[in-house]
């Protein structure tokens, strides 16, 4: 029987426990504290960490129940060691160590972004080597070259130099009076509008694989303020559509360029912003035109979850990768080469 790998994710506001056996997802239990953060307009680290402690054991138990397994059936424990919110990460790492120690099974500390890429293998099978990954969320906007998830570190080709794409969605949503998190309401509103406002594409065509969304956010704010100052109504649906178009355009353009320049024919898109309908549509169109195979996990697996950690843990176990020691540190700025 293939090993059962349990994965724990607590890097931000989702307490996730996933269970994977032989590349098959057996359970994906999630407890989210997003409602507790909504009134603050962003994730409050201490509120998130408290919620993780409360939810940790119930979520572990629920995942096992969903998979119809007992703790003794678990053969390895994987956990997000970073990057993320320090206090939040620490709860998951401590829980994972305790679980592994109590069961006498190996522990695998994994990188959050690598796990976001690995989750796609649960839906679409093994990744070709190499593959390209575009990861976009409230905390990250990264373009990664992925040689072999189980054996070689992922290489960062570029990342945002200021705000993450998801952060820009949250800030623009707040500007337009929409709730947190900003991704879903902007996506909905944008369907009723047209992308007619030429907001800037930060760092487009600058020859790097880096992104910038801070200037875009400010441009949207200036445009909206000018309308309000002139006493004119703000066409919020058009603003949402135009902003979303600017984000999706620059993300997909750079991802496709990176694939072409590196001779890579598969692009994986992941992270919470990968749930955005315009990003998915534009990525599909541009990949098709460029002869690139696009792989996007279903939205539930794009946002943070334990399944992605279990998926990567499973690949590591199968490849015979060395386990982590019990003194594994949670690292808010964990580098990819770790």
């Amino acid at each position, binding site marked *: 029987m293939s090993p059962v790998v349990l994965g724990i994710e607590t890097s931000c506001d989702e307490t996730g426990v996933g269970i994977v056996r032989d590349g098959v997802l057996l359970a994906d239990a999630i407890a989210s504290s997003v409602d507790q953060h909504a009134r603050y307009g962003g994730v409050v680290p201490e509120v998130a960490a408290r919620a*993780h*402690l409360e939810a*940790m*054991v119930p979520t572990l138990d629920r995942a096992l129940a969903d998979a119809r397994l007992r703790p003794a059936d678990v053969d390895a424990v994987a956990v997000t060691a970073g990057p993320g919110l320090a206090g939040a990460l*620490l709860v998951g790492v401590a829980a994972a*160590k*305790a679980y592994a*120690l*109590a069961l006498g099974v190996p522990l695998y500390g994994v990188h959050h972004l690598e796990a976001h890429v690995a989750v796609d293998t649960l839906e679409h099978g093994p990744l070709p080597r190499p593959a390209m990954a575009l990861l976009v969320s409230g905390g990250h906007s990264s373009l990664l070259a992925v040689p072999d998830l189980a054996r070689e570190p992922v290489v960062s080709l570029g990342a945002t130099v200021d705000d993450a794409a998801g952060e820009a969605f949250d800030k623009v949503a707040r500007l337009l009076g929409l709730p947190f998190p900003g991704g879903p309401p902007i996506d909905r509103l944008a369907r009723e509008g047209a992308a007619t406002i030429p907001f800037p594409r930060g760092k487009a065509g600058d020859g790097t694989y880096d992104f910038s969304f801070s200037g875009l956010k400010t441009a949207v704010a200036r445009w909206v303020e000018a309308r309000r100052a002139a006493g004119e109504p703000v066409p919020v649906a058009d603003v949402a559509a135009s902003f979303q178009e600017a984000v999706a355009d620059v993300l997909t353009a750079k991802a496709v360029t990176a694939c072409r320049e590196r001779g890579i024919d598969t692009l994986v898109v992941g992270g919470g912003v990968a749930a955005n309908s315009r990003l998915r549509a534009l990525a599909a169109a541009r990949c098709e035109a460029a002869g690139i195979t696009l792989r996007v996990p279903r939205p539930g697996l794009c946002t943070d979850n334990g399944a992605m950690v279990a998926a990567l843990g499973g690949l590591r176990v199968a490849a015979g990768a060395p386990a982590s020691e019990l003194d594994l540190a949670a690292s808010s700025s964990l580098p990819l080469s770790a």
Partner: protein
Amino acid sequence: MLVLALDTSTAACSVALVGVDAAVSGPGSRPVITALAGRVTVDARRHGEVLAPSIAAVLAEAGARPADLGAVVVGTGPGPFTSLRVGMVTGAAIGAARGIPVHGVCSLDALAGDAAALLEAERPGSRDAGRSALAVATDARRREVYWAAYRPATGGSDEPERIIGPAVDRPPDAAARMREAQVGSLFGPGATLYAEAFAGFRPPPRPVFPSPAALVRIVAAALFDGGAPAPLVPLYLRRPDAALPSAPKAVTA
């Protein structure tokens, strides 16, 4: 019964493996507690790295396996949030993995229990009626202390009974309330850290940290009563720092 006890509510990361034998010699007798192995590491910033290896070390030292554990006892604070959570989630996850009960104990109670035992050793008879109350204080940072006050143990129990707290206060305010409660002895690192505010109490240098053995002593009887322990509740005593957002600032002048 083999019991794993741990406390991460102070700068110390304390772990102990303890043998607890049910009372057998008749009514009124108390469980017999035997310390088997222990580790104390004082490093306020490394609980997350130190705790699990310490647990593995005490198990190895005692020649025990995780499957031999009958219960886990954890200190529930009050204490700095991040390290407190490391200990509590560790205890909770071990309990979940092994299917054994996890008992929470206010960490200040353990400190008070050890302080009372020390008093009794130095001045036999301190458990008798008429002795004054005692208090303990630990560092709450931000120029405050976590503290609690206790009535000395009476005939029915070995442990002092908490009458105030746990609370978090500025040292002068805590000292004033201790004086009101006629506290005679004050213990703990909070007392020595704010020696000026607590000058009237002349706190002794020990005990400094809540000991895992004292945590076990406090719940020893409950380990054998077969009931499910109360849910683990961290004693944060403070709300999270979080400000409600103001309206977005204008970017145009």
